[in-house]
């Protein structure tokens, strides 16, 4: 289906073509006059000639309509159009004047002579009166063609339609041989056939020169009305003329009687017109269906877009009820959206914030390096940034914000915008601090009496007494040590949990006596329990090994690993404590032939409070903290801890410590 603008263009092309056609008709007739070619002058010998003035004026009209086409309306060419229109009017006007005052003003034979005996010509060389009027009308019509006021429109269209009707009447007169139609008043010269056709064509051309702006608009409409008028209106011209002609022919050759012929014409006309209208109705219905389908589709699309906008509304509502502060910024950090929580947390109104950068409102109080780091992460690396920073509310109160900023990437990984989620963690951090202080204080308070017991029992043990009393005191001492270890473990766990630095006091220490001491202590306690197990240092264990470590903590690691090996071994066990060097790392191991750790639980060994299923039956004293703390201690020293284990075969725990002091310092930071 063609669009309205395509149809408009076609109409304009037709208009231009008609202008050229009329121009050519004029030229041809003038040629006819020049070389005295009858068929050019009058079409048929029975018809009146087209006068040379008429032919000249038609040439003017053709030029005028061509020049006044809209595409030339802005150029100088349109002056030619107006001048030509005036020229045609002038010829028409002078001729009318000649008719009125009955004086020959000398224009009739200005171009060519015509004999006074010319057929149906009263004044030789003078055009018919209706022809002269038509020129005046068409001139007016052309002058107003490009004037786009309401009056201009009427003065352009109405004369053209009048001329068209007059020309149609004349043409029909020629077809049906009704001489009154083309003769007009018998005492005047009639309009020539090709003059009438030319008038018809030029009027048509005028009407279609601006199809979008006047009565012909409906012709170029892509609506049903447009297609109806385009299809049916030509039929209004063609059908009666064709049947009229056929009837004329049958009359001429006497095929039927006149009455029979007329009734056949009427019958066939009815059928043809009815069929045309019917066909048109069917086509229109099809178009109507197509249109309603298109409308339905449009309606559906509208509903989808409505539901999308509802979804967006839902998102907004959801984002507004979130307690976290949510902002969306463009690729340069300019805030595009802020949720309600932004107002609640920062005290800035959303309108104050949108269009600004976070640094212009609540942010911008951290070090330059912090922000460089942040932008590098989200813009260059295009990764999520997580950080904690201090921002300021509108009233100047600082608050601690935990921030997550993610870049939103589109095709090709281009950052389109950022989503920032901030949580006010001021209270949580305050609580953390209070908790840490409480734990620190509590541990101090618990450790003070434990120290007193430890030290006084030690003093008592040094003084001479009976053997049995000594035994009691050692029990007190051992119990107290267990209590101290428990407190230490809980304190360590709390330190690890709070994410604070795990305290290590590094000193260069020879580790060998420390390990020997731990082995000796545990062996002594084994013997006191009549246990037949053995703990030995591997033959390759060095005589001296100086490392930069926290002696107490590393002692704790050995103690935990050997304790575990003992606790999860069966009677008459052999445990080996060994050492090897790998690159810059000192690696220690504790190997047993005990229960082993079940495969499906191996991944959880270093979890806090974890105890393997097969251990609880053998030993009930473990807290499940030993390996968790050992891992934290080793990692704090810049080392690693791992193990190899098979159920019912045994377990070997390994841990590494850096030999190189620089590496240790690096890992400390």
């Amino acid at each position, binding site marked *: 289906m063609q669009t309205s603008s395509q149809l408009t263009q076609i109409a304009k092309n037709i208009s231009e073509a008609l202008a050229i056609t009329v121009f050519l008709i004029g030229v041809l007739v003038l040629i006819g006059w020049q070389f005295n070619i009858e068929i050019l002058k009058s079409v048929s010998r029975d018809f009146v000639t087209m006068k040379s003035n008429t032919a000249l004026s038609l040439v003017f009209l053709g030029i005028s309509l061509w020049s006044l086409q809209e595409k030339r309306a802005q150029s100088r060419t349109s002056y030619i159009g107006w001048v030509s229109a005036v020229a045609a009017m002038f010829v028409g006007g002078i001729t009318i004047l000649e008719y009125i005052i009955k004086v020959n003003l000398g224009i009739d034979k200005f171009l060519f002579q015509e004999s006074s005996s010319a057929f149906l010509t009263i004044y030789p060389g003078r055009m018919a009166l209706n022809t002269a009027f038509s020129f005046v009308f068409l001139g007016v019509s052309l002058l107003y063609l490009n004037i786009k006021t309401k009056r201009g429109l009427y003065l352009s269209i109405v004369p053209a339609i009048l001329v068209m009707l007059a020309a149609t009447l004349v043409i029909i007169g020629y077809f049906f041989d009704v001489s009154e139609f083309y003769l007009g008043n018998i005492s005047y010269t009639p309009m020539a056939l090709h003059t009438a056709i030319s008038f018809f064509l030029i009027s048509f051309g005028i009407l279609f020169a601006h199809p979008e702006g006047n009565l012909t608009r409906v012709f170029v409409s892509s609506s049903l009305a447009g297609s109806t008028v385009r299809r049916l209106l030509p039929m209004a011209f063609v059908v009666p003329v064709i049947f009229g002609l056929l009837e004329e022919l049958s009359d001429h050759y006497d095929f039927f009687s006149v009455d029979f012929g007329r009734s056949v014409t009427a019958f066939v006309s009815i059928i043809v017109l009815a069929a045309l209208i019917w066909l048109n109705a069917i086509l229109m219905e099809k178009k109507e269906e197509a249109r309603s389908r298109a409308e339905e589709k449009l309606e559906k699309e509208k509903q989808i877009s409505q539901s999308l906008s509802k979804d967006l509304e839902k998102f907004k509502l959801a984002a507004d009820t979130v307690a976290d502060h949510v902002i969306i910024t463009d690729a340069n950090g300019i805030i595009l959206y802020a949720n309600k929580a932004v107002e609640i947390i920062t005290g800035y109104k959303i309108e104050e914030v949108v269009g600004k950068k976070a640094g212009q409102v609540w942010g911008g109080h951290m070090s330059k390096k912090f922000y460089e780091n942040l932008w590098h992460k989200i813009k260059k690396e295009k990764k999520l940034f997580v950080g904690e920073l201090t921002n300021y509310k509108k009233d100047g109160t600082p608050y601690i914000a935990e921030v997550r900023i993610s870049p939103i990437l589109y095709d090709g990984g281009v950052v389109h915008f950022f989503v920032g989620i901030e949580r006010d963690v001021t209270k949580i951090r305050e609580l953390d601090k209070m908790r840490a202080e409480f734990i620190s204080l509590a541990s101090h308070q618990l450790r003070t009496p434990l120290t*007193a017991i430890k*030290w006084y029992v030690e003093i008592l043990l040094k003084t001479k007494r009976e053997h049995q009393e000594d035994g009691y005191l050692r029990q007190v001492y051992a119990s107290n040590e267990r209590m101290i270890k428990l407190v230490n473990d809980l304190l360590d766990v709390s330190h690890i949990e709070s994410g604070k630095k795990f*305290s290590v*006091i590094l000193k260069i220490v020879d580790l060998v006596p420390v390990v020997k001491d731990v082995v000796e202590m545990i062996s002594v306690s084994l013997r006191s329990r009549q246990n037949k197990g053995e703990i030995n240092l591997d033959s390759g264990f060095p005589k001296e090994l100086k490392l930069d470590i926290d002696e107490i903590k590393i002692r704790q690691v050995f103690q935990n690993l050997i304790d575990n090996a003992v606790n999860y071994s069966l009677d008459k066990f052999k445990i080996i404590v060994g050492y090897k060097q790998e690159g810059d790392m000192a690696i220690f191991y504790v190997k047993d032939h005990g229960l082993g750790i079940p495969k499906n639980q191996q991944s959880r060994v270093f979890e806090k409070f974890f105890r393997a299923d097969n251990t609880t039956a053998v030993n009930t004293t473990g807290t499940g903290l030993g390996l968790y703390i050992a891992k934290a201690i080793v990692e704090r020293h810049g080392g690693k801890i791992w193990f190899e284990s098979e159920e019912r075969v045994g377990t070997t725990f390994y841990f590494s410590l850096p030999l190189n002091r620089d590496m240790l310092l690096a890992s400390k930071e």
Partner: protein
Amino acid sequence: MKKILIVEDELALLYALASQFSKKQFTVFEAVDGEEGLKKAIDEQPDLILLDLLMPKKDGMSMLKDLRKHPWGKNAKVIILTNLSDAEKVDEALKNGTYDYLVKTDWNITQVIEKVKASLGMK
């Protein structure tokens, strides 16, 4: 004879410690808070100070800092002997030039005295 100053607010611990230093090798001075500790340190100029941290009137860390401002105290030998084991405290103490940092429950008195002797080159 080496002069030792023990600054400790918990009297039970103070007596236990003080009683175990050999009378032949050490002269022991005692103080029960940071204020007294600072005064005695400057008056007696001990070879070593065993310093607790959590104490009334003036805590050990403040006393240490004040001591470092004093011409004599600048280079005084200090071992922290406390039951606080926060990483921050340890770092702060080490930054202020302490010889060692001992958590009381980790050591018995004999070991503490060994550490003191080692630090004074007495072995």
